[in-house]
């Protein structure tokens, strides 16, 4: 053996150390004085520990272990042995079942939340406009409006309102109808563009540069222009847009009121 051969050196070290630390020496083994001293030290150290450990009541320990195993001790000897693979299969099955149960529960919660959301959305929106005979849009009055909003909507129909003063076109919207002719539907043309009045009293198309004193008024006016002229939505959306336009007018009334 040479020191340059790590494998043989390692196996040599292993065997030497195993001899040194063996409880019983193999017959015919010769040790140097240093090895004898090492071995003696190791055995003395172990015996010291063993002496501490020997202070043990085996009977009491066995009874304590039995007490711990008490719940299973009576059934263990006659219990059918389950192989490891069977236990693993059963464990995997239980885990899969648990996963499916969690997925189903989460899916159910999702569906319930979706239904709840749809319900709230449905109750909070205006009923869709319907197409009546002759290709005219009919929007039903908004069902739930606050008193103030209705009042504001009613005020909007007064002659001071630009839309009322213009006399051109009709703004289809539930709130408009709610403030005025009770449950009478507001009828608007499906083909014609909604003509919003300009501040000067003419139609939107004819007003080249409307003059507003308040920038907010101009902004609101242009918003309505965009909604009315640049969108050609289907009847259902059109009804909602009409309602939104009405809502914007209410907002305008509340913000700037009689200043118009």
């Amino acid at each position, binding site marked *: 053996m040479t020191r340059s051969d790590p494998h043989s050196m390692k196996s040599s070290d292993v065997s030497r150390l195993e001899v040194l630390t*063996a409880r019983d020496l193999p017959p015919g083994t010769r040790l140097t004085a240093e090895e004898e001293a090492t071995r003696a030290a190791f055995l003395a150290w172990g015996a010291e520990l063993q002496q501490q450990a020997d202070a043990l009541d085996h009977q009491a320990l066995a009874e304590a272990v039995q007490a711990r195993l008490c719940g299973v001790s009576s059934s263990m000897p006659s219990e059918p042995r389950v192989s490891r693979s069977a236990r693993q299969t059963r464990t995997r099955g239980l885990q899969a079942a648990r996963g499916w149960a969690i997925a189903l529960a989460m899916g159910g919660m999702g569906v319930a939340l979706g239904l709840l959301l749809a319900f709230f959305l449905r109750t909070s929106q205006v009923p869709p406009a319907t197409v009546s005979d002759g290709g005219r849009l009919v929007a039903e009055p908004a069902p739930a409006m606050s008193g103030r909003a209705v009042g504001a909507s009613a005020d909007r129909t007064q002659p001071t309102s630009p839309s009322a003063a213009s006399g051109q076109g009709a703004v289809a919207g539930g709130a408009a109808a709610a403030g005025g002719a009770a449950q009478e539907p507001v009828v608007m043309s499906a083909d014609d563009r909604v003509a919003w009045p300009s501040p000067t009293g003419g139609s939107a198309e004819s007003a080249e540069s409307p003059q507003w004193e308040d920038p907010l008024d101009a902004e609101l006016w242009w918003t309505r222009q965009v909604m009315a002229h640049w969108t050609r939505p289907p009847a259902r959306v059109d009804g909602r847009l009409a309602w939104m336009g009405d809502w914007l007018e209410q907002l305008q009334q509340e913000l700037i009121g009689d200043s118009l």
Partner: protein
Amino acid sequence: MAAVMRYVRGMAADSPSSRFDQQLAQLVREHAAAVRGYLLGMVRRADLADELLLDVFERAWQARDRYVERGHLRGWLLRIADRLAISRLRQVKRESTVDETTWASLEPIDDTSDPAERLVQVEAEVELASALDTLPPNQRRVLLLRYFGDLTFAEIAEQTGWPLGTVLSHCHRGLATLRRRLAEQP
């Protein structure tokens, strides 16, 4: 009548429950001292070692179906003990520890124990501590597995997860330390 009683006693002795008790008692009788010695060496606290000793035999008994007979039952028990001891030591490290002086001031005075017995116990604990303090934990672990489990170094390497060279190095250094300690003793 006597024959009937003998028959009944024989049946009781051969019942599954009785066989179970006998096997467990035999297992404890043959290996408990060695396992306890190993645990004492590892955790260095008698109460903790005894608690772990119960765990070792409980687990060993529950897992006896998985034990593959290789003629080394004690080695198998010591592997369980080693795993439990390492796990417990990690747990103990996380716990806040109270030094002996503080603990003695907090501990209620025990009037029931005999002072002589208490003295013997304290001396034994001091001896144990001095024997164990001479070695770092890794060296101690290797030598304990070698002494109490009679595991080969390859088995120790497998159990500890260390390379064989590391195990041999720990053993070398541990033995050198023990030899010095023996030489220093009067």
